[in-house]
């Protein structure tokens, strides 16, 4: 699949924004000023961006507890995201959600989700809306290897298949669910094999290769838009941080993590591919890098300086108050 120069620049910017956002969040979390739980997406950028670069605003995605990358890839703004993570006024969810619940419905981002398996049924619903209204829209649900074993996920795959819904099940297999290895928890070994059981097309792609993800997602999304029903994409990748910040990662060797950063980095791979093929030049990528770092400085400073939400906000946005 040919990718235009503009699209390539956009994809790089998006992946790099995710990376620097996560690196910054790791740093800020370590200061103790960033409340709650955070689960970082660093190392997995090509999955979110490879998929979302085919989507338009009205297409819907649903994410997981590891949601920052999907948010950015689907167009959520970094400033309000950072405000949300710090629990401040002006955050994308007004400070009521935090890292595990960042959402922006105006961008077709139906939320990070702190219940493993919470997303797939909702994506079926979003796909139903698109199908009933004949919008040509699609829904994408991102799920982990661990989440692939949740009943709601498996029921959703069956539902989507029998109802021929325009939904794409993206399984981000990073090898672990918390400390439990996917090679144990996923019966059958590869998640992609489950596609056949549910009578939908499935592919497994290398998640460090933006182009592979992009191509696979393009086919699945195109098929869904044309009424061809659901697809499954298993993306294999490596998370660069622990399950959550604070995880001691006793189940991985220090080398494993270090090597992954060197050999399994989607950004390094992308940069090498596009510069070697003379599609983009290093200088323009460097310029993007600098811009993004500045953007993170601005977003972080703004979040730290922002006021807290008013206590009265506790009582807003509920259907019934007593």
């Amino acid at each position, binding site marked *: 699949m040919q990718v235009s120069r503009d699209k390539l620049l956009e994809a790089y910017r998006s992946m790099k924004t995710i990376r620097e956002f996560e690196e910054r969040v790791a740093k800020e979390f370590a200061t103790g000023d960033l409340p709650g739980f955070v689960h970082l997406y660093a190392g997995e950028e090509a999955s979110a961006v490879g998929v979302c670069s085919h989507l338009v605003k009205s297409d819907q995605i649903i994410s997981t507890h590891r949601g920052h990358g999907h948010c950015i890839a689907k167009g959520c703004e970094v400033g309000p995201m950072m405000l949300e993570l710090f629990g401040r006024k002006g955050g994308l969810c007004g400070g009521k959600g935090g890292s595990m*619940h960042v959402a922006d419905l105006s961008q077709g981002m139906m939320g990070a989700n702190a219940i493993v398996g919470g997303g797939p049924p909702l994506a079926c619903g979003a796909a139903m809306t698109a199908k009933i209204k004949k919008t040509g829209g699609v829904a994408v649900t991102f799920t982990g290897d661990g989440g692939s074993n949740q009943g709601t996920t498996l029921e959703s795959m069956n539902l989507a298949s029998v109802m021929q819904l325009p939904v794409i099940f993206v399984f981000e297999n990073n090898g672990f669910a918390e400390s439990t290895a996917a090679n144990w928890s996923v019966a059958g070994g590869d998640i992609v094999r489950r596609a056949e059981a549910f009578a939908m097309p499935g592919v497994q792609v290398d998640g460090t290769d933006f182009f592979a993800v992009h191509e696979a997602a393009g086919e699945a999304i195109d098929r869904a838009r044309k009424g061809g029903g659901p697809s499954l994409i298993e993306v294999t990748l490596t998370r660069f941080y622990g399950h959550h910040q604070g995880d001691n990662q006793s189940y991985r060797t220090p080398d494993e993590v270090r090597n992954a950063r060197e050999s399994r980095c989607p950004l390094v791979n992308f940069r090498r591919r596009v510069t070697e093929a003379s599609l983009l030049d290093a200088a323009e990528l460097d310029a993007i890098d600098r811009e993004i770092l500045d953007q993170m400085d601005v977003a972080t400073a703004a979040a730290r300086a922002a006021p807290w939400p008013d206590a009265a906000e506790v009582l807003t946005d509920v259907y019934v108050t007593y």
Partner: protein
Amino acid sequence: MARKLSMRQAINEAMHQEMERDESVIVMGEDIMGGLGVDWLEGDAWGGTQGTTKGLGPRFGRDRVIDTPISESAFIGAAIGASTTGMRAIVELMYVDFLGVCFDQIFNQAAKFRYMFGGKAECPVVVRTQIGGGFSAAAQHSQCLYPIFTHIPGLKCVIPSNAYDAKGLLIEAIRDNSPVIFFEHKKLYDAETEVPEESYTLPFGEAGILREGGDVTIVALARMAHMAMEAAETLAAEGIECEVIDPRTTSPMDEDTILESVENTGRLVVVDESYPRCSMGADISSMVAEKAFDSLKAPIRKVAPPHTPVPFSPPLEAAYLPDAARIADAVRAVARHGS
């Protein structure tokens, strides 16, 4: 010499001792050892997200300390099935908020067997689960939800407020032949009390009187029991003596201890961290209104969060959760009434 343990350690010790004593006791859940599928790893990778199951795997082996995939409906159901056929499973539902993906197995299956099968089945399962706010863990990781379980006939509900109670009540739960839901407030894991080394049980349906006083009765569970004690200290300095009662189990519920106290004080404040509607606060208030109406000198006051999900932002969560100051205000209002 009196030995101190945290609630985390007390819970851990209770499981160690019961697994040692009874071979039919097994432990199940996600990452309770951790590291499954990592060949070179020895011992616990995690020992549970809170370390409550640490050491069980190395001591008793993976046959009895069973890590599971993220499939709550299946593995909690399996724990229930195993417990109906000769095992005593202690199964961990990591956070009570995850009940949504497995509730059928608990409330339609485990809770019903004995009655529905005409007394021919027992289901000695224990479901251990984390509750409560205070960590900015937001709407899907901060709930209490114990009223939902207390509502179901056939389930016993245990909500310890300290390490000593937790050990005795957990051992009781493991030996009990009915399904028990054991709620652990995540803000209490590090709180220490004296805990005897030997095994002991505390009976269900027997409230703890944390403090005696003749002016106002405060009933409070789990973390709220500590808030109530803090309020009681403040109020004592003002000349208001509170009796603080920790029910410890909501099913069965020790009605007598609460009623006797209210008969003496004539004034009741119920503190509850769960949502205010159909809550333990509402349940205990209605019980007292029904059975001790003539003793009451003031309207019963409930202290609870507002009827909203739990917010993320620290100042919002602080405004949301009941605290000692709000409890003290409620007690003052009740104490003033009619005097």
